């Protein structure tokens, strides 16, 4: 957002370079393991974190129910795709986003009266209700007896994106577009309204920021993004659509991502997601290396839990602005800045 330090590189260089690598280099050198186990889930989670960051990081409305909206997005996309034959896949995704938006507005209404913990608790209502509804009413799962459904094949304009590279590129494009729009949003007056409502709701009200509308808008936009992220999670990564993966743990995971990555930062969502996706893999490698047979999946699970929790506490204490702040500091030290006027 604010960059009082001019660097000798133009601002667009970083993102363009990244995109070049993401589109041009990785598909050539990457293995399918890289795409399937690391990059695609990373992309989906990053998008969910972008969505949550808009709501919690920028607008200050705490939500512990993100997974519910991911679930809504996934199931809605599946149902639109299934029941409206001929509907393009992208359209299903957009419509799914809108369904998530509608739910987001409904569950966001309490934010007009509640703050802080109370709001957090009310978002849990969304989490539990949605999980229950999706499991209870088999219509959502197309009356499939096991409740687990396969995600549809990904084809856009006749091109199939069903390979691991294809799914990666599909997710990548959607994430890039939405993240770019989100970045633009936070720099508009609406984005600043979010921040104003977060920092001092009363003052915002007094100067004429439409507080109620701003809060609901934050819920609406955030839910849309999170819904699409959920659809991506199911369609591009898991390749199944089921309520189980969208539980409270997932909601907490997204919250952890934005705390670790950096609240009120679009980039932060990516940093946090990267850490959260990569670290269990590193941990399991490290664990089996160090402890050999003693290191079973149970131990891995628990260790992950502990390290994650400790990381959260660490970041909250030592670096409340998250990984982005660490990164910016590192950059400043490594790339010397020309003298400021």
């Amino acid at each position: 957002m604010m960059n009082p330090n001019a660097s000798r590189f133009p601002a667009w260089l970083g993102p363009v370079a990244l995109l070049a690598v993401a589109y041009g280099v990785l598909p050539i050198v990457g293995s399918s393991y890289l795409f399937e186990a690391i990059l695609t889930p990373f992309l989906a989670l990053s998008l969910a974190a972008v969505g949550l960051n808009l709501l919690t990081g920028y607008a200050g409305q705490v939500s512990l129910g993100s997974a519910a909206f991911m679930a809504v997005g996934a199931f809605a996309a599946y149902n639109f795709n299934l029941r409206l034959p001929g509907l393009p896949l992208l359209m299903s995704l957009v419509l799914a986003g809108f369904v998530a938006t509608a739910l987001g507005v409904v569950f966001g209404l309490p934010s007009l009266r509640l703050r802080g913990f109370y709001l957090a608790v009310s978002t849990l209502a969304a989490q539990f209700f949605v999980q229950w509804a999706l499991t209870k009413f088999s219509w959502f799962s197309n009356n499939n007896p096991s409740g687990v459904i396969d995600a549809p094949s990904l084809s856009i304009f006749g091109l199939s994106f069903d390979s691991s590279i294809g799914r990666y590129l599909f997710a990548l494009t959607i994430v890039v577009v939405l993240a770019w729009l989100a970045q633009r949003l936070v720099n508009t007056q609406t984005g600043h309204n979010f921040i104003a409502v977060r920092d001092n709701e009363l003052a915002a009200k007094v100067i004429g920021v439409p507080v109620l509308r701003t809060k609901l808008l934050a819920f609406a936009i955030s839910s849309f993004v999170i819904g699409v992220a959920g659809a991506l999670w199911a369609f591009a990564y898991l390749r199944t659509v089921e309520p189980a993966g969208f539980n409270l743990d997932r909601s907490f995971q997204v919250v952890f991502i934005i705390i670790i990555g950096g609240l009120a930062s679009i980039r932060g969502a990516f940093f946090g997601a990267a850490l959260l996706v990569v670290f269990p893999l590193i941990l399991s490698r490290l664990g089996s290396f160090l402890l050999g047979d003693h290191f079973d999946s149970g131990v891995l699970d628990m260790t992950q839990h502990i390290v994650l929790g400790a990381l959260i506490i660490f970041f909250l204490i030592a670096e409340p602005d998250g990984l982005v702040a660490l990164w910016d500091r590192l950059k400043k030290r490594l790339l010397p800045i020309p003298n400021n006027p």
Partner: protein
Amino acid sequence: MTSTSALSLKRAPAGATAETSEFGRKELRTFPEAASSEPLRLESITLAFGGVTALKDINLAVAPGEIRAIIGPNGAGKSSLLNVISGIYRPQHGLVWIDQQKFARVPTQKLARLGIARTFQNLALFKGLSVLENVVIGRAAVRHANFVEQIVGLGRARREQADAQRRAEEIIDFLDLRAVRNRWAGTLPYGLQKRVELARALVARPKILLLDEPMAGMTATEKQEMTRFVRAAREEFGTTVILIEHDIGIVMGLSDRVAVLDHGRKIADGPPAEVQANQAVIDAYIGVPHDDEPEDAYA
């Protein structure tokens, strides 16, 4: 850093167009034609919470373009008065008249549209925004483009942004904040933060400006500068100012009329010299209790 350039909109800031100076002159022209009616009047305002009566039957009239000070010992109800005017508290009794419109409770969300802006005692800047962004957001009430238009960045959204930015830059020049305009608002020293809050209030070109202890915690130099800015605001924009202030010297020099509150009641109202000599006022400040007040009224 001299302020000769800051005080006058007539000399357009660097980079401004002829449009700007015309705009500035237009504002000045409206001042002498100010409405003969009072922009603000409080009628029999009574406010109580939890058994404590903060304001008892307050009547206050404010003339257009005047600088009205509200003073009184701690706990007298001064901030409560501003909070009633800005609709943050609902008085149990009484009416607030804003430009011929009467309110039992002023709708806070519509305050800007009613032409009222205020600053807060404990600073209410948006720490997540820069100085410039804080001032720009002061125009929030007149921004009508929706978020899609803003993301696209054309047409109405672009015009509104350009307009808001231009006005913000003007006020920033006016209040000598040029040097810090890109800093995070929360990183500034206290005195400058107060000035930024004033800028944010002024950018909306309010008819009435409520200042809640704008000089609190400032050094003598800072206070002098703030006084200059408040006077200049009245001069340049014709703003009516109501300010709460503890520094009697400032109050006497700056204000046209002074209202004195004590224990929620108005005990004096008039030109500064008159109020200063008023025995009831002197008693209040020294702490001489009056018959009808309990000893622990300050609780």
